[in-house]
């Protein structure tokens, strides 16, 4: 018997290889370098991420697949590579001082961030259900560990164990869904083949397909934090280290939505009426619950967690629209969300000062007078998250809602806009507290570091810039959506 080894081109997974090698080098250096001389891991990680970004840019425009049809090479994947690399790089920038305060500026933190990013990339480029599952787990396991990074901190412990149990529970549902699809399609796991096999055998195996679809929705619903699978989000976001929360909020959401969108658009276009109505209900429930409960929060991290649930609801609207503009809006909004959310968490880290002592929203009183630049940055992020014109948040919501109108979901858009109005209340409340309420005491020094400043200036500037000139990102996203000619 002869075995044919398929030809492959290593450059098509160049960014993955770079991140893997960087992460392993970080781990080795961590083990080999003497104590007290470990300051260079952030720089090394940033270097690795930068090289991966350059490789991605050079891959831009490639189409088809590689590695025996396991990996998609298309601009949809490359766009998400860039978003994920950006999210990881910003996280590295905001982490350093924060981790040093806790005495946890360790090599494995950066290695785990890189491994998680790698897992996310596998997810967005996976052309086979095993790849998607493997990417999901590489990402998740790294993030379980990151959430529990502060071993001595009870909240961090609790967040990690809750995330692990619920994450593994949801993976089991996702896997069972994959098994059902494998059965329904008569034995294939390639996304391309699944699409037409499921339609061909529809008469015979429709119940099995629908069961598989429902279980996949449960699995992805957990990862993107949509109602009713959102219970873990507030606890995990509050308990995890703030820099990890930022990474979880942007990276996991982007990767999960990318894989979710690819599966829905590619495998299930024929079952659109079935999943659309289900997601309609989920989207409305997610938006409403996220926004209404966020109003009642006094802890800023918890408030941002509920805001993240609400944003998952808006993103689901883009998915439901299932047209080209819907896909574009999804890509645009996930990039926008990365910028504004990492920025907001950066401010939370700075205002929290030594070991997260100031996380109540009332601790922001007087910030406008005593640290005007920081308050201005926070105001920009809050305006963007609320969707005020002139910021990326507005453009993103505008695309999402126009896609839904185009697809004929008028009521969904009305509910979405109402929700957006509710959300203005709690985002603006932070701004009002910062500027209108005097501080109860002197806020004291805030430990600005160059890397944190760079991250905040970059995200604030990009939030405004791409909010006024969205053309560049829009064109890139439109180009990426050519990966789905059926839409």
């Amino acid at each position, binding site marked *: 018997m002869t075995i044919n080894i398929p030809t492959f081109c290593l450059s098509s997974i160049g960014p993955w290889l770079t991140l893997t090698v960087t992460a392993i080098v970080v781990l080795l250096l961590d083990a080999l370098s003497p104590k007290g001389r470990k300051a260079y891991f952030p720089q090394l990680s940033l270097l690795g991420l930068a090289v991966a970004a350059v490789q991605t840019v050079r891959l831009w425009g490639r189409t088809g697949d590689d590695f025996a049809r396991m990996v998609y090479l298309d601009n949809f994947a490359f766009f998400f590579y860039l978003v994920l690399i950006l999210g990881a790089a910003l996280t590295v920038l905001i982490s350093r001082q924060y981790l040093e305060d806790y005495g946890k500026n360790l090599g494995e933190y950066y290695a785990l961030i890189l491994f998680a990013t790698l897992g996310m990339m596998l997810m967005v480029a996976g052309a086979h*259900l*095993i790849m998607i*599952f*493997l990417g999901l*787990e590489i990402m998740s*396991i790294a993030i*379980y*560990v990151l959430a*529990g990074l502060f*071993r*001595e901190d*009870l*909240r961090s*412990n*609790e*967040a*990690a*164990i*809750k995330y*692990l*149990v619920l994450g*593994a*529970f949801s*993976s*089991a549902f996702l*896997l*069972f869904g*994959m*098994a*059902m699809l*494998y*059965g329904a399609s*008569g*034995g*294939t*796991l390639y996304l391309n083949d699944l699409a037409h096999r499921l339609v061909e055998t529809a008469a015979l195996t429709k119940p099995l397909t629908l069961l598989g679809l429902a279980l996949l929705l449960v699995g992805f619903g957990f990862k993107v934090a949509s109602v009713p699978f959102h219970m873990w989000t*507030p*606890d995990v976001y*509050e*308990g995890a280290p703030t820099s990890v929360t930022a990474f979880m909020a942007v990276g996991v959401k982007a990767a999960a939505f990318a894989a979710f969108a690819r599966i829905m658009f590619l495998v299930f276009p024929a079952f659109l009426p079935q999943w659309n109505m289900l997601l309609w209900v989920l989207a409305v429930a997610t938006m409403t619950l996220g926004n209404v*409960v966020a109003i*009642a*929060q006094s802890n800023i991290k*918890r408030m941002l967690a509920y805001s993240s649930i609400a944003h998952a609801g808006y993103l689901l609207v883009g998915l439901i629209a299932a047209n080209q503009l819907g896909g574009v809006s999804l890509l645009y909004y996930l990039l926008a969300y990365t910028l504004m959310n990492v920025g907001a968490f950066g401010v939370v880290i700075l205002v929290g000062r030594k070991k997260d002592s100031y996380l109540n929203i009332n601790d922001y009183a007087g910030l406008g007078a005593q640290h005007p630049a920081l308050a201005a940055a926070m105001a920009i992020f809050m305006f963007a998250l609320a969707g005020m014109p002139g910021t990326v948040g507005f453009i993103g919501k505008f695309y999402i809602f126009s896609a839904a109108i185009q697809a004929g979901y008028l009521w969904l858009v009305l509910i979405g806009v109402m929700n957006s109005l509710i959300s203005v209340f709690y985002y603006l409340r932070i701004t009002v507290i910062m500027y209108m309420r005097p501080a109860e005491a002197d806020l004291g020094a805030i430990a600005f570091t160059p890397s944190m400043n760079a991250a905040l200036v970059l995200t604030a500037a990009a939030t405004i810039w791409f909010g006024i000139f969205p053309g560049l990102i829009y064109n890139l996203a439109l180009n990426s959506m050519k990966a789905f000619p059926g839409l």
Partner: protein
Amino acid sequence: MAVPLECYLGLSVALFTLGAIGVLIRRNILIILMCIEMMLNAVNLAFIGFADTFKAVDGQMFVFFVMTVAAAEVAVGLALVVAVFRNRATVSVDDLNLMKW
């Protein structure tokens, strides 16, 4: 003797359901982790059943990946349980109640 697909699937669904119920009602984290293992093994069984019926090898390959990943997940899970136990001297989920809305 060939085992019919229905038997594989019936057992798989029963195991999966038992595992899911266990995760929801048990209070000891270690037992919850075991229940999750049971759910993953139910998935493995379904894959093997289908792969055997269709004579397609992908399903059997998937099983190896699931087993590897499950091992990694449990390793991390047990490490976290140890960390929690050191700080709180408990392995019951009822005691993990620092954060609530």
